[in-house]
């Protein structure tokens, strides 16, 4: 009986008048994304060295010179890039072979599980030369790989559609990268000239 009374007294003391202080926490930047097509910039070293992504306005070129005797032969012509990005800025690992491959990589951070970030590409219908002759952008395709990679690529092989298309995705809180080897299908005879067109890659977070 005495023991029971003591227990009741102790409980009453614990829940006596008192306050508490509250700290609310939230993420300053719940979502961040980084996309690099060709060359990119990290300040302070690679990510592994504590570096941070920075803006790099460079637009790299992927091109091919088709010999006159090969024009329209149907033999695909491998393209090369002026990009100097062979190493991943994640850890400086040599990931792409130059000049035959274009580095494409980035990351997506989010505190909410609302899906993956999507990488899309927007290409015009045609490449155009100075006199207005055209080559359909669908004549350009790519394979995808990465040195040391054995599984599926996050940005797999494909061909431009002359419009907006999905290139791949980056899962939440992941870094993804691939090396694209472009080629010109060379399936039609076209007038001589330099044909150009720009593809814009966009990484969109949900």
């Amino acid at each position: 009986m005495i023991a029971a009374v003591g227990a009741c007294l102790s409980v009453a003391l614990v829940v006596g008048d008192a306050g508490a202080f509250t700290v609310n926490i939230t993420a300053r930047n719940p979502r961040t994304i980084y996309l690099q097509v060709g060359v990119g910039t990290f300040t302070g070293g690679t990510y592994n060295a504590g570096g941070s992504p920075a803006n790099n306005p460079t637009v790299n070129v992927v091109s091919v010179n088709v010999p006159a005797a090969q024009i329209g032969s149907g033999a695909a012509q491998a393209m090369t890039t002026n990009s100097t990005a062979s190493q991943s800025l994640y850890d400086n690992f040599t990931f792409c072979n130059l000049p035959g491959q274009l580095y494409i990589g980035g990351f997506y951070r989010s505190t909410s599980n609302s899906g993956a970030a999507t990488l899309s590409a927007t290409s015009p219908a045609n490449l155009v030369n100075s006199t207005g002759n055209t080559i359909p952008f669908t004549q350009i395709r790519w394979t995808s790989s990465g040195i040391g990679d054995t599984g599926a690529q996050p940005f797999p092989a494909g061909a431009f559609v002359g419009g907006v298309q999905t290139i791949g995705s980056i899962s939440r809180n992941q870094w993804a990268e691939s090396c694209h080897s472009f080629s010109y299908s060379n399936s039609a005879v076209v007038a001589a000239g330099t044909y150009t067109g720009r593809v814009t890659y966009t990484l969109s977070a949900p």
Partner: protein
Amino acid sequence: MSAFASALVGLVVLAVPPGAAAETFRVDDTAALPSETTALLRWRDFAPSGGAQETLEGSIAVAVRLNLTAVLNRTGRLYLVLPKQGTTPVRVSWATQGRLLPGEIAPGLRTLVYQGPVTNPYLEETLALRIEADGNHLPGMQRLDFFFEFDAD
């Protein structure tokens, strides 16, 4: 069944030293004031590491003024308590100006911040909290409700 219960009560009574009145007091800390209403946490690493744990971290100072009148002239141990709450795994560590002990805590635990006699009715201290949270599980705002309790000898 009845006999077993009686034996257990008897054992408890014997375990309490004669004259001792160990009590736990919830300390009045209503004057505690965080420097900001919300601690904004940044990604520890700007880019993902590829690991399962993605840490957000941040800091905030809390000016603490504890009313210890209820335990004045008693000896015991003062704890900072962080009850279980929310769904985000967090870990909080803190530095002090020396009147309380530095330490760290996770939800559901309490950490010793002072041991000894209480000779002043009020104790003022600034806790520099460093908060780490799992960025995979912090979709919005989360409250962390702390309080102090005193185990008197």
